[in-house]
């Protein structure tokens, strides 16, 4: 038996979450829906826009909140019967407070950067800052889980964030970036899911 690396073993449950590609597939679809919804709104006839902007942001927020539960229910049908069931640990009080503090910190930073950008209009600065945050979040996932594909995607998003900061298209560029990143992410997830299904046929008997 090989010597045990307890730190590596501690990372295995979080790696298992990404093993089947479902989280990436779902995240990619979510980004595509978000980007498309914001791009589609302005193209609607004027009479429909009020109703659209009344319903769509709430629907997008609800979809985002439901995404984790949706992914879990898909895992219960697809992943657990093939590769085993795991109930992940809920984040402790300390970790929850840390996550909350990071979210508040990022929101405050975003507000400061956007409001102090005197030389550039808010419409141009805000999408760039959001792109940087998105890129850093993906990069952080990649570093934490040691997944080169996430590090690469995070790097691409950061480069695109710099590009978005230097063009005047602003929100439209950000939304197109979301759609493109969503397509890439969903494709990565789809490929991983296909490989997972091939490698793990559904067993006839459970243990």
């Amino acid at each position, binding site marked *: 038996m090989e010597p*045990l690396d*307890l730190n590596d*073993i501690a990372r295995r449950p979080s790696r298992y979450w990404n093993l089947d590609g479902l989280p990436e597939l779902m995240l990619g679809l979510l980004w595509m829906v978000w980007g498309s919804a914001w791009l589609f709104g302005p193209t609607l006839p004027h009479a429909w826009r009020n109703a659209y902007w009344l319903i769509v942001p709430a629907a997008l927020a609800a979809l985002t909140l439901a995404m984790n539960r949706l992914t879990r229910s898909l895992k219960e049908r697809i992943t657990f019967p093939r590769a*085993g*069931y795991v*109930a992940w640990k809920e984040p402790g009080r300390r970790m929850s407070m840390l996550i909350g503090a990071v979210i508040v910190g990022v929101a405050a930073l975003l507000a400061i950067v956007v409001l102090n950008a005197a030389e550039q209009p808010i419409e141009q600065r805000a999408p760039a800052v959001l792109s940087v945050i998105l890129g850093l979040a993906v990069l952080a996932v990649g570093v934490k889980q040691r997944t080169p594909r996430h590090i690469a995607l995070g790097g691409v998003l950061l480069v695109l964030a710099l590009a978005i900061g230097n063009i005047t298209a602003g929100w439209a560029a950000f939304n197109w970036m979301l759609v493109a990143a969503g397509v890439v992410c969903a494709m990565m997830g789809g490929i991983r899911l296909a490989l997972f299904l091939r490698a793990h046929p559904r067993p006839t*008997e459970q*243990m």
Partner: protein
Amino acid sequence: MTELDRVIHEPARLLIVALLAGVREADFLWLLRESKLSKGNLSNHLAKLADAGYVDVEKTYKGKIPLTILKLTKEGKGAFERYKKTINGVLTRTSG
């Protein structure tokens, strides 16, 4: 000499306990896949851990299919933490 917990010190059982320490609960299939032990070997080690009160084994059904849910008990978590401290202490002393 510092006394190591013999139940956990065995490599296969240490692996099982370390895997279960990272999750709230898991089933036999996941543990089998992650530990790469054989079914019989895993069952034997789980029985020893259950006898020591470190692992809670719950046999249930999902539909008509039997399912074994495994969870580290409070004693198991404590024993694993103590083991890590002890082994780190031993390693520090021997390297220093």
